[in-house]
């Protein structure tokens, strides 16, 4: 079936290749799923404009990398995906150190906005036609220090920057438009994130995301860690879908270095990924019910979910952050007993979910408040390059498992589940359906799992290779881009699904009710700890008191008896 796609639309692809080859640039290198071309920044807008006209293209990620020591340039990598052709198009733009200015393409590709700001903050690359935003590396971050540049090691940075405690005070003006803060500590968001809703009466007029509270400097940390340590770091990007990140990281390295993973390891990875999807979706269902005030639904959803958690612990040794992935395979095997146990649990969970969802979705308040709220039109979903259930709820069939098959999905057929309504109910239904789909996939995986080793013996790192690893997380597509180094990644770019999907929230919230805001925000299944490994956007702060925290005491850490 995948082949037929290629046959039908091949002329489109070849015309694209033609266009790329005729540019005043070195010809593109074409690998199995990767088309790579180096262009000058003068040509960037022209090329992007041509690309944006292609059918079914979307921005997957953009990476800024400091390769001054290797090639003497900064480099930008724009990664576009062509779903139908299963191809990634990577556009490399070298930028000189003296004049690090690039034309902004935000008017052509809406989704690029955050990436450009992030590059501006972390790498010090300037984008023309863009108002320079004040960085928020924390408010008092020193000017002209860009943490991802290779000039600084992680230890240098902690010496350069001494945090101060800044107490923000926000008073609400009693105007016609009231600003309602959702967060940073808000029971609807289990993470410290901050939305400002501009409310007239009970209607939401506008929304602003003031976030990046959970920035922990992961990308920089990763560059200072060894290859085998990074999967554990990647896993801690997000506690719910951690395995997605470590798989994605490992795949990026494996693709870059052309490492062949044993088939059994691929099956085990897929198995755990699907288990993770089930527990994440059940979690989402529960939280959504809680946000609709239906606490009984929340409790029962979590009761069912707990069985999946126990299963996950049995298979991997930890309830979350499984610590299973290493480059070249997995660390633990799944034996016959565990397979049998898993199948039993899955049967039980499937039955219980079916029973329960039927009842829960018939509660009048749940029904009326999910239907028709948080509407996201299909054109917007396409324009903003959204991913995961958010986009599938608006009728865009985008699923990495089918479009860019990885791990054991190569051997299976996965049809994306879509709904065309684009409201909260549609997204909820997509997730419920996906639970059943995951259970079906798991049955196949556990049935077909081949014998063999679970990891390759050893592998050699080769510096400056480029690799992309993408995984369909419960929330959408996670994509890691890697440039390899000698002992540790030279540059590691993580893009989580929420990073793309958050852009849709203002559209979804506009003219909705305040009461529906939490469930609408939750309907993209936001995971801020994933998103915020990077820093953007500044907080409109009104500093009231500043308490110098010139040195952070480490007294508590010393062994003083």
């Amino acid at each position, binding site marked *: 079936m995948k082949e037929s796609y290629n046959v039908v639309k091949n002329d489109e692809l070849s015309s694209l290749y033609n266009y790329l080859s005729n540019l005043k640039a070195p010809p593109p290198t074409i690998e199995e799923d990767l088309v790579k071309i180096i262009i000058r920044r003068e040509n960037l807008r022209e090329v992007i404009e041509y690309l944006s006209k292609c059918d079914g293209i979307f921005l997957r990620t953009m990476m800024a990398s400091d390769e001054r020591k290797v090639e003497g340039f900064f480099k930008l990598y724009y990664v576009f995906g062509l779903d139908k052709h299963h191809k990634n198009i990577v556009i490399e733009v070298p930028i000189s150190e003296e004049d690090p200015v690039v034309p902004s393409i935000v008017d052509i590709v809406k989704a690029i906005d955050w990436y450009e700001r992030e590059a501006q903050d972390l790498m010090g690359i300037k984008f023309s036609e863009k108002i320079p935003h004040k960085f928020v590396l924390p408010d008092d971050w020193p000017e002209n220090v860009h943490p991802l540049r290779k000039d600084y090691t992680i230890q240098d940075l902690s010496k350069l920057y001494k945090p101060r405690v800044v107490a923000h005070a926000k*008073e*609400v003006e009693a105007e016609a438009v*009231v*600003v*309602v*803060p959702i967060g940073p500590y*808000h*029971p*609807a968001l289990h993470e410290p994130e901050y939305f400002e809703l501009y*409310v007239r009466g*009970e209607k939401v007029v506008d929304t602003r995301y003031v976030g990046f509270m959970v920035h922990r400097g992961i990308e920089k940390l990763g560059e200072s860690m060894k290859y085998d340590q990074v999967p554990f770091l990647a896993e801690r990007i997000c506690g719910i879908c951690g395995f997605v990140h470590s798989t994605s990281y490992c795949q990026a390295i494996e693709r870059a270095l052309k490492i062949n993973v044993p088939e059994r390891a691929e099956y085990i990875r897929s198995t755990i990924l699907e288990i993770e999807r089930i527990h994440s979706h059940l979690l989402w269902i529960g939280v959504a*019910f*809680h*946000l*609709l*005030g*239906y*606490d*009984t*639904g929340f*409790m*029962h959803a979590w*009761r069912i979910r707990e069985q999946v958690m126990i299963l996950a612990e049995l298979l991997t040794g930890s309830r979350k952050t499984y610590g299973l992935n290493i480059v070249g395979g997995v660390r633990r095997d799944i034996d016959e007993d565990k397979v049998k146990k898993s199948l039993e649990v899955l049967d039980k969970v499937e039955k219980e979910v079916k029973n329960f969802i039927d009842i829960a979705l018939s*509660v*009048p*308040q*749940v029904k*009326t*408040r999910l239907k028709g709220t948080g509407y996201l039109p299909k054109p917007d979903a396409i324009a903003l390059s959204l991913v995961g259930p958010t986009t599938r709820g608006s009728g865009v069939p985008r699923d990495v498992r089918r479009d860019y098959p990885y791990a054991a999905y190569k051997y299976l057929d996965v049809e994306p589940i879509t709904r065309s309504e684009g409201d909260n109910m549609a997204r909820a239904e997509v997730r419920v359906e996906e639970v059943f789909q995951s259970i079906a996939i798991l049955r196949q995986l556990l049935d077909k799992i081949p014998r063999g080793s679970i990891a390759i013996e050893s592998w050699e790192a080769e510096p400056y290779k480029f690799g992309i690893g993408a995984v369909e997380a419960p929330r959408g597509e996670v994509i890691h881009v890697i440039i390899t180094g000698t002992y540790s990644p030279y540059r590691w770019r993580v893009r989580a699904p929420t990073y793309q999907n958050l852009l849709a929230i203002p559209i979804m919230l506009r003219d909705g*009710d*305040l*009461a*529906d*805001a*939490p*469930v609408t925000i939750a309907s993209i299944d936001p995971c801020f700890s994933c998103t915020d490994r990077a820093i953007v956007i500044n907080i409109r702060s009104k500093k009231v008191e500043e308490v110098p925290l010139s040195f952070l005491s480490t007294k508590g850490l010393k062994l003083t008896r």
Partner: protein
Amino acid sequence: MLVRGFLISFIINIRIAIIIINNNHFGDPMADPLDIATIIASVLLYVFLPPLLDGVERKIKADIQSRYGPPTIFQTWFDILKLMSKEVVIPINYIFYIVPISLSFTLSIVLSVIMSQIITLSNMSLMKIISVFVFLTSIHVLNMLTYLFSSNPFSIIGTFRVMTLNILNEVGLALFLILMFIVVTNSPCSIMLSLFTITPLTIAVYISHGRLPYDLHEAEPELASGSLIEFSGPILGLYLYSHLIERYILTSLPILFIIYMFKVFQNVFVMSLVFHVFTIVLYIIFAVVSVILGRSKVNLAVKTLAFLYFLAIIIWIGVYIVERII
């Protein structure tokens, strides 16, 4: 400081309460000692039972949610006692909070006295029913006042929600209270008509409870704790306690009419007891209903309620006319 403030406002309130009770003779001759004993017992039940009932409610909730729930039904009592022992952290002068809250607390106790009087002496009068309603509304207004003292946006939004809902709901509550009074005091009391009055009355009471589909002012996911967000320590404890008592009084309203309708019990003590048992049963039914429902929205709630009361009035008039003709 805090204790003194409490004491002063409390004493003032008690004085007010005594004046209210003294001036509201409602023409009752104070009867024999059994009556007085029953009134006192009933008032004690009104004061000490509500937190226990809340504990029962939490247990039932836990059962429906397949979990263990609080260790005993005394949990809410422990919560209130603990809150009373805690420190107060509030953004403005605490006196602004203490006065209205302790006033509303006193009012609920006064209300419980009036209710006990009605049930024990079985002397219902329009004056009394109206005063019950007025007291209930003033408790609501006092609560809203306390909500508005904080400038927290969540608190303000919560207050506006509760205001919208209360204005609508109290119209229904007042209307059906008076209709019910008319139905009950008319000597050949029609069962049909009273059924069609007691049902909307019960619904109005349920909504006044601030229970799940309509607990909009403290909707946790949207508004943090909404109106209560700035309360802390004893203030929160007193608020919760008075809220629970108010709930119990509200629940007993429809039961009051039912018991009054079928004056089957000669012994006032037994009657009072049955009255409380029925109230507890109704409270538990309310609890179960609120567990299996989700939360409504304010505009949705207004629409639903307006439609519901309108329908109830039409039906009532229809039934009334039909009964008159027959």
